[in-house]
């Protein structure tokens, strides 16, 4: 063994506990890197495989009025088949369209175990063009998870397959029955399925809180759906599968060509095609994937940077303490490079140990980490977890780099080129500025003179060297920033939810309609007569596009038409500017910022304008999309970040609907004494008397609880961060405070020799650590806030969910308190040792 190697191992042995702590921090960083990135890769691969294996549609196109009943709502199946084949066979080149599927996709209501909820029927033919039975459609296939698929005879029976999110939520089993549609037709469940089309359970962009409680998908044989909806031989959607090697732009061009062909050649009326990238579930999944990816990189990098800081502090102090030995070694003939290598070797071994442990832990927990995201996002396809060598290798290099950077920087700076410089070096000079610190001089100006046996030594200890001060405070900054960030995340989210449901949403029961009733005011009046109901209002919720007149920037939003011009009873606004005016719109702040508009500016709202009324109860009509200019009368900062409010009458007027009553799809009810029993009783009465067209009636608590369920993923991530934060904080604080006290051992021995009582020494050390904790807390809170903002941006779309980020006074106190407890625990053992020092021995050598 060479001299260098011996020295390295000697140093490691001497400081084994501290080095091991840093190794552990690196190990945590590498474990989380391997785990999180693998989970992300597994998730990406799982959905990619799902898309490929089950022929996810390249684009879909619905009829112009897919929910209606007019001639532009349905297309004859056989005719459309012929048109599609014609489109595929036109031209001499091989068509880019591989195959297609004609389906019914229809939003309706289900009744499951006596409870109604929104849902979607997806129906496909169980026979191919040649009349042969098939289990899977050509496009947008699925995987049977339980039970049996449709059989040859299924088209003659009321049977269905339930998409897994809905089935899981309600714990539906094969052979159970659910009622489908307005007429509550019972369908027997044959089995449950998972499909790439609904990897995430989401129906539309307008639903910001997709939950199986409010949205679920049920598959029917095409013929049964046609009977149910009374549209024999008809479909309302085309799903198209293109060649896989096409870009988005190419897919869009083909989709546009198809639309033009069908509309111009065959006089069909169709909606705009929806590319795969814009499909709601796929879009949300992509957002989740992006968040998962960022989270997978950000968390480990923060941990590794902290480990790097810890290593920097530890080696920096070690090199300072051993500066004279370094000088001697140089004088004996060791080159500067050799000595740097020696210290760097220590850092690299620490990093290597951490990296190896982290990699092993990553491998051991591979089966836990791998499917993490797919399970959390309830993706119904089995993730294939394999060892990802590239991730392992990158993780390895990250770990080693942590050691290299954390070790090289302090060592290089501390080792002088000439041995004389090192030999001349006096550690006491290094750790003492030789000046009275500024803080003390300021106190002196105010005639506050610290006693030498009082707080002078702790204050001087803290301020004696910038580098030492930084390294002492570093640990506290890490601890406070992590704790405040984690608790800040939790309380910001809790506050946002609490504000949303306790203050902003001021209703007790909400009715959702499956189709828009045009007599909302009559319904409201009737409901208002029910015993216990104190007030009723209604609004019209829809998706819309808003465009700035000036910047021409557009944004998809949720538009709420409000019926009450004199104060909206079910919602309390949180205005940043202006107020609600029935003649204008109120925008949420993120939209205003995105569009670069503010109060008194004008925006264009793209809204449906009635061109032909088919029926008014329920509303069946033809619309065209038109842009209407509105002034902005107010800006709100609310939980739902992408929302605009407009007066319902103004909206009705602009939609050319004012001759046909008051359309609304949501009724909100205030109850005098909103106990669960009272709410349930009112709900039953509404179902009994006014059940027509009602999809759901739910209480605010039920909605809030559904939303809280949705946030489980985010809370889970926060808990992971919290666990890492606590472990990291404890280890780094303990390490630094331990070093601090060990450096002072000889000095403590001198003070004891002079006759300083133990109590006073304990007080001195505690005061010094208190100063470190207070200053570290201030800086830690600043860093904590930055990290809070960054993490929340990563794990939550702060535009979509408008969450006011803050760190409360309680959290500040908690971060400070927990860190202080950590500091006090950390000072306990080395201080106890220092107080029991052999004074004779400890005072023999020079005080550093």
């Amino acid at each position, binding site marked *: 063994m060479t001299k260098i190697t011996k020295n390295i191992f000697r140093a490691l042995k001497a400081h084994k506990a501290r080095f091991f702590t840093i190794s552990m921090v690196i190990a945590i960083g590498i474990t989380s890197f391997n785990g999180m990135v693998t989970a992300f890769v597994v998730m990406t691969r799982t959905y990619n495989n799902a898309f490929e294996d089950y022929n996810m549609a390249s684009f879909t196109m619905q009829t112009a009025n897919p929910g209606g009943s007019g001639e532009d709502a349905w297309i004859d199946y056989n005719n459309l088949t012929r048109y599609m084949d014609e489109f595929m066979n036109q031209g001499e080149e091989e068509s880019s369209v591989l195959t297609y599927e004609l389906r019914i996709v229809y939003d309706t209501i289900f009744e499951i175990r006596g409870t109604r909820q929104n849902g979607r029927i997806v129906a496909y033919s169980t026979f191919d063009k040649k009349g042969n039975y098939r289990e899977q459609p050509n496009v947008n296939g699925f995987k049977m998870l339980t039970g049996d698929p449709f059989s040859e005879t299924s088209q003659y029976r009321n049977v269905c397959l339930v998409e897994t999110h809905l089935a899981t939520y309600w714990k539906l089993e094969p052979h159970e029955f659910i009622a489908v549609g307005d007429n509550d037709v019972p369908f027997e469940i044959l089995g449950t399925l998972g499909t790439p089309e609904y990897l995430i359970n989401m129906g539309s962009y307008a639903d910001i809180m997709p939950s199986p409680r409010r949205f679920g998908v049920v598959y029917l044989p095409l013929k049964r759906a046609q009977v149910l909806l009374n549209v024999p031989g008809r479909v309302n959607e085309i799903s198209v599968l293109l060649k896989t090697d096409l870009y988005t732009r190419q897919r869009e061009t083909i989709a546009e060509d198809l639309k033009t062909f069908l509309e111009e050649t065959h006089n069909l009326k169709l909606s705009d095609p929806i590319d795969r990238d814009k499909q709601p579930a796929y879009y949300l999944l992509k957002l989740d994937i992006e968040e998962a990816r960022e989270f997978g990189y950000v968390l480990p990098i923060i941990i590794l940077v902290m480990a790097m800081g810890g290593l920097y502090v530890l080696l920096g102090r070690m090199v300072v303490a051993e500066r004279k030995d370094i000088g001697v070694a140089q004088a004996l003939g060791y080159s500067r490079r050799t000595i740097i290598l020696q210290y760097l070797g220590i850092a690299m071994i620490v990093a290597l140990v951490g990296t190896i442990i982290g990699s092993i832990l990553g491998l051991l927990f591979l089966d836990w980490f791998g499917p993490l995201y797919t399970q959390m996002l309830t993706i119904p396809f089995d993730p294939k977890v394999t060892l990802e060598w590239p991730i392992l290798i990158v993780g390895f290099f990250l770990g080693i780099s942590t050691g290299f950077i954390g070790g090289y920087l302090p060592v290089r700076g501390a080792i002088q080129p000439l041995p004389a410089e090192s030999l001349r070096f006096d550690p006491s000079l290094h750790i003492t500025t*030789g000046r009275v610190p500024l803080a003390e001089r300021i106190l002196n100006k105010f005639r506050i003179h610290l*006693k030498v046996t009082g707080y002078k030594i702790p204050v001087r200890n803290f301020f004696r060297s910038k580098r030492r001060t930084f390294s002492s405070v570093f640990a506290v900054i890490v601890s406070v920033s992590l704790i405040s960030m984690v608790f800040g995340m939790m309380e910001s989210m809790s506050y946002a939810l609490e504000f949303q449901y306790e203050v902003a949403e001021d209703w007790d029961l909400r009715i959702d309609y499956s189709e828009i009733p045009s007599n909302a005011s009559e319904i409201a009046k009737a409901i208002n007569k029910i015993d216990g109901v104190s007030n009723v209002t209604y609004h019209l919720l829809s998706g819309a596009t808003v465009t700035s007149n000036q910047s021409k920037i557009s944004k998809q939003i949720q538009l709420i038409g409000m019926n009450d011009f004199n104060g909206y009873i079910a919602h309390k606004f949180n205005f940043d500017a202006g107020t609600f005016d029935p003649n204008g719109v109120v925008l949420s702040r993120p939209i205003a910022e995105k569009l670069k508009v503010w109060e008194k500016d004008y925006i264009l709202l793209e809204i449906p304008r009635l061109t032909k009324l088919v029926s008014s109860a329920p509303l069946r009509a033809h619309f065209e999309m038109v842009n209407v200019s509105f002034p902005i009368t107010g800006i709100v900062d609310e939980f739902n970040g992408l929302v605009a409010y407009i007066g319902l009458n103004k909206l009705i007027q602009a939609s050319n609907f004012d001759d046909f009553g008051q359309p609304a799809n949501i009724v909100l009810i205030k109850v005098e004494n909103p106990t669960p029993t009272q709410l349930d009783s009112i709900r039953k009465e509404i179902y009994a008397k006014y059940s027509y067209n009602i999809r759901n009636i739910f209480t605010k608590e039920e909605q809030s609880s559904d939303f809280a369920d949705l946030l489980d993923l985010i809370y889970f991530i926060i808990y992971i961060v919290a666990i890492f934060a606590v472990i990291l904080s404890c280890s780094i604080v303990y390490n630094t405070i331990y070093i601090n006290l060990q450096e002072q051992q000889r000095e403590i021995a001198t003070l004891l020799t002079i006759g300083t009582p133990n109590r006073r020494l304990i007080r001195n050390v505690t005061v010094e650590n208190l100063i470190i904790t207070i200053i570290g807390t201030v800086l830690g809170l600043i860093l904590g806030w930055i990290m809070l903002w960054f993490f929340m941006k990563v794990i939550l779309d702060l535009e979509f969910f408008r969450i006011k980020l803050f760190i409360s006074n309680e959290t500040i106190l908690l971060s400070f308190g927990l860190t202080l407890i950590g500091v006090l625990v950390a000072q306990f053992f080395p201080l106890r040792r220092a107080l029991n020092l052999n004074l004779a021995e400890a005072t023999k050598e020079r005080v550093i």
Partner: protein
Amino acid sequence: MAYITLENVGKNYILGETMTQALDGINLNIELGELVVIFGPSGAGKTTLLNMIGGLDIPTSGKVTVGEISVSTLSAKWLTIYRRKKVGVVFQFFNLISRLSALENVEYALELVGVKKESNGGVTFDSKVIRNTAKEYLDKVGLHDRIHHFPAQLSGGEQQRVAIARALAKEPEILLADEPTGNLDFKIGRQVLEIMEAMTGKKLNRTVVIVTHNEAICPLGDRVIRLSDGRIVEDYTQKFTPAEELYW
């Protein structure tokens, strides 16, 4: 009756797996005001003996008595009080508090015990009195123009002089000096001894014990005790030689 009495004092250290006998049945009496030089080679047990007297260490066997105090049986708390009130220590490596200036180092010791009032023999903790007393002592060791300097800004001799001022300012009955010149050159070392000589002695009723391996310092003492392998091999009194006449 002797002021400091060591009766059959032994001290064993366990270093690794081997036991080292630092002191082996030491019997010693030292009078109040006596200036004793303990001389011997490295490992003879000089510092251990000094530590026993100063309450920095306790014997494995035997008894150490100072005045009427049985030092060897004191609890840690009372040992601290004993060191604070009775003993001043000067170390080979000075052991000044690096973050405190020369003046503050001396003040520290004074703030612990206070300053005796000349009027009624009581003690005052008045900060002005403490500061003036500390200045006075630093003046006595010739550092009146360096009082606000920090240890790192002082030379070795100056640091040792601060250490002496710190040890003597609280007017201890016993001054213990462990190789006080060991880390200084001849000229500075002799200056330090001259200061110690001037500030101690019978007239002040202060017992001084100096430990050294430098035989040339022995003439400074009224009495010389030579140690070897933890035992007293020679103990003699002599005519005191002033420090200014010493040479090594």
